[in-house]
C-alpha cells in the first residue's frame, strides 16, 4: 500500500466517523459532502477514475444538496406550524 492510499483511507474513515458523530442535521449533510469528496480521492488513488467521476457529483454535490433542500423545507413547515 502506498502512503497516498493510506492517507485516503484514513481520511475517508475520519469523514465517515464525523458524519455519524455529528448531532446537527445540517452539519451532518455538509460533513457528508466532505466525506463524499474524500471517497472521490480514495477511488482516484486506487485507480478507479470511472467510479470517482460519478461519485464526485452524486456523493459530493447532488445527494447533500437534496438533503439540505429537504431539511430547509421541513424547517419552513415547522416554522409555519408554530406560528
Amino acid at each position: 500500500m502506498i502512503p497516498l492510499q493510506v492517507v485516503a483511507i484514513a481520511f475517508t474513515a475520519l469523514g465517515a466517523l464525523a458524519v455519524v458523530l455529528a448531532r446537527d442535521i445540517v452539519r451532518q449533510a455538509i460533513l457528508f459532502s466532505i466525506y463524499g469528496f474524500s471517497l472521490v480521492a480514495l477511488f482516484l488513488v486506487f485507480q478507479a477514475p470511472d467510479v470517482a467521476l460519478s461519485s464526485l457529483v452524486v456523493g459530493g454535490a447532488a445527494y447533500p444538496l437534496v438533503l439540505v433542500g429537504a431539511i430547509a423545507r421541513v424547517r419552513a413547515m415547522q416554522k409555519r406550524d408554530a406560528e
Partner: protein
Amino acid sequence: MSRQLRTGLFLVSALGLGALLVWGLVGLHSFGNYPGPYGDLISSLTKPQRHTANAVTAVVFDYRGFDTLGEELILFVSAGATAMLLRETREYDVSDIVDPVRSDATRAFGALAAIVLFVLGLNVVAHGALTPGGGFQGGVVLAAAFLTVFLAVEYHAFHRLAPAWFSEPLESVGVGSYLVYGLVALAIGGSYLENVLPYGTWGRLTSSGSIVLLSWASGLAVCGGFLVIFGEFAQENMAARHRRSK
C-alpha cells in the same frame, strides 16, 4: 427499553458483528493481490473483441448491458416517484420567482463554471469508450452544469433552462432508446442488447459499435433523471420562499 438494556444489546451485537467482520477480513486475499480471472480476461479481451479502449465501459454497456438497463430503470422510477410525491403537495406556481444570487462575482463565475461543466459532460459521454467516463458519469456532470446555474446564478434561469417539459422527455428518450436498441439488436443479432454495429477503429470516437450509442442513451437518461429530481427539489424550496414573502 431501559438505557442499560439497550447498551447491553448494542455491545453484544457489536461484538458479534465485529467477530464476523474480522473472520471475513482474515480470509481475504492480501492487499493488491487480485486472484480472479475475470478482470484480467476482460482487460485483455475488450480490444480484440470490441475495439474498446476503456474496458469499464465495455463491461457496462456491452458484456453487462442488461444490468445497466436495470440501473437506468431504477433511476427512471425514482425520478418519477420524486416528481409524483413532491408535485402532489405544491400549492404555488413558482415559475415566475426571480431569486438571483446577490454576489455578482459568484454569478459570473457560476455561469462560467456551468458552461465548462456542460462541455466537460458532453466530452465525458462522447469519450466513454476511450477514457474514464461514459453515459452515467457524463450524464451526472451535465446535470451538475444545470445545478450550478441554480446554485450560483439564479433560480429563474435554471427553471427556464431545464423545465419539466424538457427534462422529463429527455430522460424518457434516453431510457427508451436504450430499450429500443436492445430490441433492434434482438431482431438483427439474435440476443437482446447484442453489439451488432460495426466496431470501427480502436481509439477512435466511433469505435466499439453499440457501446457509444448506449453511452449516449444513458447519458441523456441520467442527465434527464437528475434534472427532474433537482427541478422538483428546487421548486419545492422556492415554494417555501414564496409563502414566506407573502
